[in-house]
């Protein structure tokens, strides 16, 4: 909707809610050195490194939950309900059904992380494909695709996610669909704008003149230039996706009980804030820490791959 806005914004800021495609200086072919240099720079950045380590710990705890967790995530106990943090046997207390909270938090990370990454990954593939087609084809096809997506852009993302998930009905796969649909238009915008920039370059004309077909031009000459900026944009979406997914579960539209998921746990523990408030707040701490980790990591990746530096 705001084509001008995108060009007016400096590349450095890329708040997920605002579409600002990183305008790259396209290379004739993606150079290996750029990514290696970016990796070296990432390792020198302490904030990024620490957030990467924290994330790694959270991912590991979720991944290896069956081996690491101290208890059974579904084993309830009527006499052990809402124990405080630091109870013997229950390090982080118990939830409203007497289940061990540390265990639930570890297991909960599995679905929460999955719902952060999976919609973004799906939107990355679908959106890049649509954006490449729209950007490379140009003309009426571009018009048709981009104007259609403008309609979805006219929906605030939380509203769109809740509306789609609400229409489809509660459930994890439905909220997965809803979130993917929320992110696809955003990714398409970035991919389309970079593709349009690249398409105008001389070497694309040269390739076409030497007889290369559209598909091989896209594959060989365009894709490498588009994937980088779209990837950087998509990394910024992961935390948004996680917060939204947990938000859907919090509303009762996502994962269903008794499954462990941070947003759902926050929802079911809400009634306990008068009994044991800090236990009730814990699942949110996990969402917060993880999404902050993803955001800081995305910032690090963005500044490390910024070719202007």
């Amino acid at each position: 909707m705001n084509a001008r806005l995108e060009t007016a914004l400096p590349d450095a800021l890329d708040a997920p809610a605002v579409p600002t495609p990183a305008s790259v200086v396209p290379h004739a072919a993606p150079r290996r050195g750029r990514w290696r240099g970016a990796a070296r720079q990432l390792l020198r950045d302490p904030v990024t490194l620490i957030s990467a380590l924290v994330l790694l710990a959270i991912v590991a705890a979720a991944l290896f939950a069956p081996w690491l967790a101290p208890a059974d995530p579904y084993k309830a106990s009527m006499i052990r309900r809402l124990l405080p943090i630091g109870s013997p046997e229950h390090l982080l207390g118990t939830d409203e059904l007497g289940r061990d909270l540390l265990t639930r938090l570890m297991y909960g990370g599995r679905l929460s992380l999955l719902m952060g990454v999976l919609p973004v990954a799906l939107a990355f593939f679908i959106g890049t494909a649509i954006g490449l087609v729209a950007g490379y084809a140009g003309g009426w096809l571009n018009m048709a695709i981009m104007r259609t997506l403008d309609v979805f852009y006219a929906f605030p993302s939380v509203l769109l996610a809740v509306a789609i998930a609400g229409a489809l009905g509660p459930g994890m796969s439905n909220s997965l669909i809803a979130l993917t649909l929320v992110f696809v238009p955003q990714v398409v915008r970035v991919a389309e704008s970079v593709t349009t920039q690249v398409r105008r370059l001389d070497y694309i004309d040269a390739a076409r003149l030497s007889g290369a077909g559209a598909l091989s031009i896209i594959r060989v000459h365009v894709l490498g230039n588009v994937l980088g900026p779209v990837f950087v944009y998509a990394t910024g979406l992961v935390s948004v996706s996680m917060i939204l997914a947990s938000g859907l579960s919090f509303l009762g539209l996502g994962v269903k009980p008794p499954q462990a998921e941070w947003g759902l746990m926050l929802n079911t523990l809400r009634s306990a804030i008068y009994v044991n408030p800090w236990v009730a707040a814990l699942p949110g701490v996990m969402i917060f820490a993880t999404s902050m980790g993803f955001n800081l990591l995305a910032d690090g990746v963005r500044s490390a791959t910024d070719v202007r530096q």
Partner: protein
Amino acid sequence: MFAYLLKRLLYTLPIALGVTLVSFTLVYLAPGDPLNAIAPADAPADVIEALKVTYGLDRPMPVRYALWLGRALHGDLGASIATGRSVASEVMSAARNTLALAAVAAFVGVGVGCVLGALAGYRAGGWIDRVATAISVVGVSVPHYWLGLVLTIVFSVHLGWLPAMGAGGSGGWAWNLDQLRFLVLPAATLCVIPMGIITRTVRALVADTVNREFVVALRARGLSHAAVFRHVAKNAAPTVLAVAGLQIGYLMGGSILVETVFAWPGTGSLLNTAIFQRDIPLLQGIILVLCLFFVALNLLVDIAQPLMDPRIRRT
């Protein structure tokens, strides 16, 4: 300028039409009969038929859309299936409450964000910059429904200073001190989202602008700090306006979760009710009103921007 305005206006019409189409069809994505909400499972077939006719469900989809759109243009969004009340008046009274909440949150969030971002961008690399950057990262990372819960725990459960839920009084919104107490926690929660993003935007813009040659030239001419800053602010304003406009729109639609936490009687709570009661006319009405508000806001930003920045008019 007139041509530009006309172009923006014409461009908004198909978007608005698209929004009505999506709002109407979205709710039919789900399998199942919309009449399940009111008709008992063992209702006889002729009763079901009569209900279908009453709600116009016996006609094909395009006809239903056209009829719905025609009535919507006259401000009639039909009647709620669950309560039988007029959707338009239900949505409007809820929207008033949400608007009060979103306006306060936007005002605080955008205001604080602008000040913080400008200070940080002006002294990029300094301690204010670090604090502002930290605040903006926290602002965009924090799950606001959780923040609302934590604020409730601290200020309602522990300290007992502020009410935890509702909007007080008659349930509707009114501007008086007693009701204002109910607004504090939800608004404080909601304002964090625009604050983080605006801080980030303003910081990047200001930091980018102060390094430009014209700013160096202004300094060389001996202009005071305040005078130089005015030039920087003028350059940053149109973009900040655009981002702030989007954020206010997001607040209207995004307050669903915060409203649920605080039981605020706004569009978010209404939407939640409509979803779980599968109240299709109500659902369509809320989505439509919120989106049209967002579209109108975008149009407003598009109109205000060239008024502030003549460079945009030429494009």
